[in-house]
């Protein structure tokens, strides 16, 4: 982990895995169960290897054999229940440290695991010769809650006809959920994968499909896969279903799979993939490392894109037809991301969690290069700015994101991120949002490195890493080359310094070894006498998420004579920088003004300050620092910057700045940009919203028709009858996006009474009325959805008289019109559903807005019906979003319970994740506010949920932790009984638990507490005896007698129902954890 010492890779295990066989004999869709075995070939690296620790979660293990000898084993998962049930602790700090300890206890990167196998003593002697051991484990999974996801639609017909399928999923290394393995990215081995499935199904997995063989009864077939490239277990995946198969027409070794009936969409969506392949292979000057590639599109996907060795699993919702505009770039981006991760992430794997940033960074960076090539430099720079803004906002709000955490000694005191409510020591303890920001920062830092050493060197480094890895991958295990396929921070930096000869140490220290971003405040004065620009750059490095920056910074000054770059040095105490200006103010000379890109333009200079030659100033224009800049310059300078600076980032900055200057000149600048067709469409879209804000601020002095109306009319309406929009023709995408955006922005206009002007509303209603898509090549579903959004934006709070009940009769006339449109759209969508139900989603948002503004009665039942399982997932999320909002506004405890129970029980993992995420974003109450909802029962419920209810999904558990933090904060929730009592509880834990008055009331907690009271003497006795037995087993060599005992005991496991099984495991863990803690 420490980058100083990790020259070669040192395995934390006393053995090395070389090959693993995974064989799944039976997949039962009806019962949602899986039976199979694995066989791991390992080389002991120590003499007397007596224990083998492997990872396995929720698998039921029937037997373990080592070299054909029965071996005793212990299955112990401390993450099932993080804190001991008897504890009345409800403080998040306590939970976080307990959770981190639990994850550490089974962390494969530290050589630990849930499954401890005792090597039979007969084989010990063999260990001296370091001979191969074969560990054979039979296991089954019954209704897995994590790892594998079964989608079984409830209709008539065979499983294949029903479109039933199953696929593996997980956040980070989660393969242990579906078969026993060494679940680490750094333990590579070759693979043989066999899956026996129904004859009507296809099993898609990693590596090459060698052959497909029918079983003897011809009703099933077995897919044999071989993966000769050493691969880590977390990069192994499986998808089984009645997939339609499409061989890529351009690359025959690439195969695409989708669910029945979607083949036409698959064909269209995949028609582009070969270009992405070509792009990456060209820039990396390296062939795609695997011999084949498979894409599988599944329903109810965990994430949109997940990459595994030689295959990627995507959400089926990425598929689209040729008629859809908006989805197309998104799908292509997802494909490009997946493919970038094939090179860095799957083929080249990380050495440790601390090196994750390198792989995420490189894959994100080359994905960025793809964006630049495909969507253009403007789009790329826009994206970089967006990502930079995101990370800056997150870090300033939540505290720093640390890319390369180092843990010296592993003591809690050395926690590098004390501001966070979770530990960043393990990927499984991270909040999802943090992880997303982590990835975002990683690729931005890669870009900073590129800025420093040039793209050419950067690509050379990647090429070097890839060629090293490919050489290593073709070697036999014995050559000890495989660790070359693992990438560490150290190796990466070394490679950079070798290739470029440059020292990027300070850069790495600033952005990788340290968290936080830089916050600059800039202002300037022009000294006419000295003809000098006096620039002042201050920093805020004291507030959370900020750090001090010392080093070079680029400042670009546009003067009358041209554009000049200045490299300034930010030092400890210097705030002021003098920059000599080139031009005296010479406005009288009619001369074109040269811009940065060499272009020369005419400008109307009348707005300028007569004494100053400065047109505009930009600080760090290339975004080569992770920073936020707040710069002060006069409004006319922002206007010049918007009109004449050619960089989209500068234009966007100018637009944001102009919001504060509601003047006719700003209006004119924005309108000009809006009309300018050469201008990047996203800038023009942003200008729409800015114009709406300015118009609202200028409402008393605004001249002419509402903002953008005449512009829209000129661009999109008929010449002869300006109130009627032309029939849709979206062949020009730029104007399509503008056409979509302008009404949405216009609807934000407000008149003197702070309501949406009548003209604007009628205008939008007319757009809806006259919308005609019959002659269009493209679907107008997103456009119509945006028109509904525009209607939503036009809503303002209802005038309420005496809090009367909202009825149809007292509906405002305008609202009635809006409601009629929404009703019609919503109903039509039932008959002619739009792509991804975009229109219904907009309608639901509109209805929630109508409720919130008091036009119609606030009622959650409509949203509840749309949130049910069985609706399209986007629709469900939109409905849930409305419900979350309802819960907050109405402080409804019933709805909160409803949401939480869905978060606990919904079949779709993504929906559960989203519910918690949305509750965090829009919490019903926070730690600082008082609310009737905040009560002990809720605390207990959430605590139980994150403590034991989410053990099957790392992401969900972290979501629950986030929500708990949002609602109650780090310390003991205020709504719980007096803190004194809590203190007593902590001190006298055991006794307090025995006190029946404070017994938790619900579920497992109560059940376990009762056990502790020794009510069921026999159970406790039994399990304790069992545990003692096993502990003893671990300490001394086994005897044939213990063998049979273990065997019989595991056998009883197989016959118990899942719940008692978990209980048992929890029992084991509790009893053994004390023993284990001694080891760790």
């Amino acid at each position, binding site marked *: 982990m420490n980058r100083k010492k990790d020259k070669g890779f040192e395995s934390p295990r006393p053995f090395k895995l070389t090959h693993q066989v995974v064989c799944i004999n039976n997949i039962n869709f009806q019962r949602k169960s899986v039976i199979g075995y694995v066989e791991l070939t390992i080389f002991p690296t120590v003499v007397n290897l007596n224990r083998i620790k492997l990872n396995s979660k929720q698998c039921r293990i029937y037997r373990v054999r080592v070299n054909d000898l029965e071996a005793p084993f212990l299955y112990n998962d401390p993450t099932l229940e993080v804190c001991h049930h008897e504890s009345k602790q409800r403080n998040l700090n306590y939970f976080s440290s307990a959770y981190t300890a639990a994850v550490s206890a089974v962390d494969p990167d530290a050589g630990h695991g849930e499954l401890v196998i005792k090597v039979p003593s007969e084989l010990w002697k063999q260990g001296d010769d370091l001979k191969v051991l074969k560990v054979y484990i039979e296991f089954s999974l019954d209704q897995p809650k994590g790892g594998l996801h079964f989608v079984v639609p409830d*209709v008539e017909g065979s499983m294949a006809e029903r479109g039933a399928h199953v696929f593996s999923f997980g956040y980070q290394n989660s393969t242990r959920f579906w078969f026993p393995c060494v679940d680490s990215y750094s333990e590579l081995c070759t693979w043989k994968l*066999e899956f026996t499935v129904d004859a009507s199904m296809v099993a898609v997995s990693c590596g090459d499909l060698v052959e497909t063989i029918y079983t003897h009864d011809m009703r099933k077939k077995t897919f044999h896969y071989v993966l000769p490239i050493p691969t880590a277990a977390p990069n192994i995946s499986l998808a089984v279903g009645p997939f339609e198969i499409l061989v890529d027409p351009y690359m025959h070794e690439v195969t695409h799979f989708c669910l029945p009936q979607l083949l036409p*969409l698959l064909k269209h969506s995949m028609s582009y993939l070969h270009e992405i392949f070509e792009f990456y292979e060209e820039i990396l000057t390296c062939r795609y490392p695997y011999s084949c590639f498979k894409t599988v599109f599944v329903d109810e996907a965990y994430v949109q894109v997940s990459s595994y060795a030689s295959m990627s699993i995507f959400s089926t919702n990425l598929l689209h037809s040729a008629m859809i505009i908006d989805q197309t770039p998104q799908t292509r981006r997802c494909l490009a991301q997946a493919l970038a991760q094939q090179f860095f992430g799957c083929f080249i794997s990380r050495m440790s969690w601390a090196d994750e940033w390198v792989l995420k960074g490189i894959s994100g960076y080359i994905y960025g290069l793809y964006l630049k090539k495909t969507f253009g430099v403007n789009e790329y720079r826009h994206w970089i700015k967006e990502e930079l803004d995101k990370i800056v906002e997150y870090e300033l709000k939540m505290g720093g994101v640390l890319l390369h955490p180092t843990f010296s000694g592993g003591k809690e005191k050395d926690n590098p991120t004390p501001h966070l409510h979770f530990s960043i020591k393990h990927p499984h303890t991270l909040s999802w949002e943090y992880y997303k920001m982590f990835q975002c920062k990683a690729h931005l830092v890669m870009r900073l490195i590129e800025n420093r050493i040039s793209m050419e060197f950067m690509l050379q480094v990647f090429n070097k890493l890839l060629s090293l890895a490919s050489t290593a991958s073709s070697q036999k295990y014995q050559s000890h080359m495989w660790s070359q396929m693992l990438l560490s921070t150290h190796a990466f930096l070394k490679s950079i310094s070798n290739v470029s000869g440059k020292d990027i140490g300070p850069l790495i220290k600033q952005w990788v070894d340290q968290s936080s971003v830089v916050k600059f405040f800039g202002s300037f004065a022009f000294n006419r006498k000295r003809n000098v620009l006096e620039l002042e750059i201050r920093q805020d490095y004291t507030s959370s998420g900020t750090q001090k920056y010392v080093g070079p910074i680029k400042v670009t000054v546009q003067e009358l004579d041209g554009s000049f770059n200045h490299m300034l040095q930010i030092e400890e105490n210097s705030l002021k920088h003098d920059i000599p200006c080139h031009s005296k103010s010479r406005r009288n000379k009619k001369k074109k003004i040269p811009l940065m890109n060499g272009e020369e333009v005419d400008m109307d200079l009348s707005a300028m300050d007569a004494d100053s030659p400065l047109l505009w100033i930009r600080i760090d224009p290339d975004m080569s620092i992770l920073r936020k800049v707040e710069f002060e310059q006069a409004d006319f300078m922002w206007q010049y910057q918007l009109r004449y600076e050619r960089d989209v980032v500068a234009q966007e900055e100018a637009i944001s700045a102009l919001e504060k200057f509601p003047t006719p000149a700003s209006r004119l600048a924005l309108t000009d940009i809006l009309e300018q067709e050469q201008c990047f469409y996203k800038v023009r879209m942003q200008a729409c919203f800015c114009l709406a804000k300015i118009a609202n601020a200028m409402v008393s002095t605004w001249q002419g028709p509402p903002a953008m109306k005449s512009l829209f009319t000129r661009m999109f309406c008929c010449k002869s009858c300006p109130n009627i929009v032309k029939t849709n023709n979206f062949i020009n995408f730029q104007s399509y996006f503008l056409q979509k955006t302008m009404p949405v922005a216009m609807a934000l206009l407000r008149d003197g009474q702070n309501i949406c002007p009548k003209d604007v509303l009628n205008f939008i209603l007319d757009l809806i*009325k006259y919308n005609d898509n019959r002659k269009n090549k493209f*679907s107008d579903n997103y456009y119509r959805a945006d028109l509904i959004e525009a209607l939503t934006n036009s809503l303002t709070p209802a005038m309420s008289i005496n809090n009367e009940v909202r009825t149809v009769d007292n509906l405002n006339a305008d609202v009635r019109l809006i409601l009629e449109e929404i009703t019609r759209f919503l109903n039509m969508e039932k008959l*002619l559903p739009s792509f991804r139900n975009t229109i219904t989603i907009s309608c639901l948002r509109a209805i929630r807005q109508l409720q919130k503004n008091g036009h119609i009665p606030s009622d959650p039942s409509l949203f509840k*019906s749309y949130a049910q399982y069985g609706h399209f997932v986007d629709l469900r999320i939109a409905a849930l979003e409305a419900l979350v909002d309802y819960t907050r506004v109405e402080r409804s405890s019933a709805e909160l319970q409803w949401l939480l129970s869905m978060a606990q029980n919904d079949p779709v993992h993504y929906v559960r994740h989203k519910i918690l995420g949305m509750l965090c974003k829009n919490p019903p109450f926070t730690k600082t506010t008082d609310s009737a909802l905040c009560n002990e029962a809720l605390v207990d419920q959430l605590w139980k949920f994150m403590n034991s209810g989410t053990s099957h999904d790392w992401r969900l558990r972290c979501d629950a932790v986030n929500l708990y933090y949002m609602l109650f904060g780090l310390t003991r929730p205020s709504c719980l009984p007096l803190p004194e009592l809590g203190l007593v509880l902590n001190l006298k834990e055991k006794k307090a638990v025995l006190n029946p008055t404070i017994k938790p009331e619900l579920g497992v907690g109560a059940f376990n507490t009762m056990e502790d009271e020794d009510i069921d003497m026999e159970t406790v006795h039994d399990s304790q005896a069992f545990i003692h037995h096993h502990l003893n087993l671990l300490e001394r060599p086994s005897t044939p007698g213990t063998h049979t005992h273990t065997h019989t005991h595991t056998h009883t496991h197989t016959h118990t129902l899942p719940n008692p099984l978990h209980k048992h495991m929890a029992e084991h863990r509790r009893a053994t954890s004390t023993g284990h803690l001694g080891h760790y």
Partner: protein
Amino acid sequence: MADPAVASGGPLNAGARGSAGKATSSPAENYLLARRRTLQVVVSALLTESGFESAEKAAVETLTEMLQSYITEIGRCAKAYCEHTARSVPTLSDTVVTLIEMVTNAPVTPKALSAGQKRTHPAHIPSHFPEFPDPHTYIKTPTFREPVSDYQVVREKAATQRRDVERALTRFIAKTGETQSLFKDDITTFPLIAAQPSTIPYLSALLPSELELQALEETDSSEQDDQTDGENTAGNAITDDPGADKENSMLPPSGVVPSTKASEDNVIDNPYLRPVKKPKVRRKK
């Protein structure tokens, strides 16, 4: 006017006689006699007008007979013309044609009935041909209503129509099925079709509706997948992507790899397309 009538009386005698004979045999003799008397009065009046002071009874009878047969013939003939053109009530033009047929000069249309300036014959039409009728009988007056080609109105109409259809349809479905409401007191004003969970929600959310596919085909029917084998399309209910690549041989969704390989030469060697092997009598490794 009287002259021609009298002069052309002769040739019609035979017909008139026939009808007279028939009339005597009919039972409504009184009517006949009354008509005859009227005609006699008319003849006598004409004679008086022409300057005769007295006439023999036989002469009056003859003249009456001639007049009657003449009128009868006009009626019969006009009726025949009228029925010839599949009408039941004779019109003026039928009568006119009849009169021309009977080689009398067509009666000059009374001044009061003629309108406008009649066209003279062009040079190539002999003058004995009938004159042009009154201009109003053939001149068309362009009085059509402005067809709704005004863009604004068309769009307006299309929009309203679509909205009405949608509203009616959704209301109907809402009335016949389960609904949800935003208001507790009034569940009919804004009825929402109840949300029904589906077993495979992603299908309807991802696949384009048939309507959209249809529209797409209309806008872009350039390329068609010409190579489809029956087995594959059977297993695949969704129509193929127009831009689909021909190289891909589709597989049935069941995943059973067809043992017969595609007949093309450039067979793709992909392990997922290879046939499944028969089990061998050997232990699995």
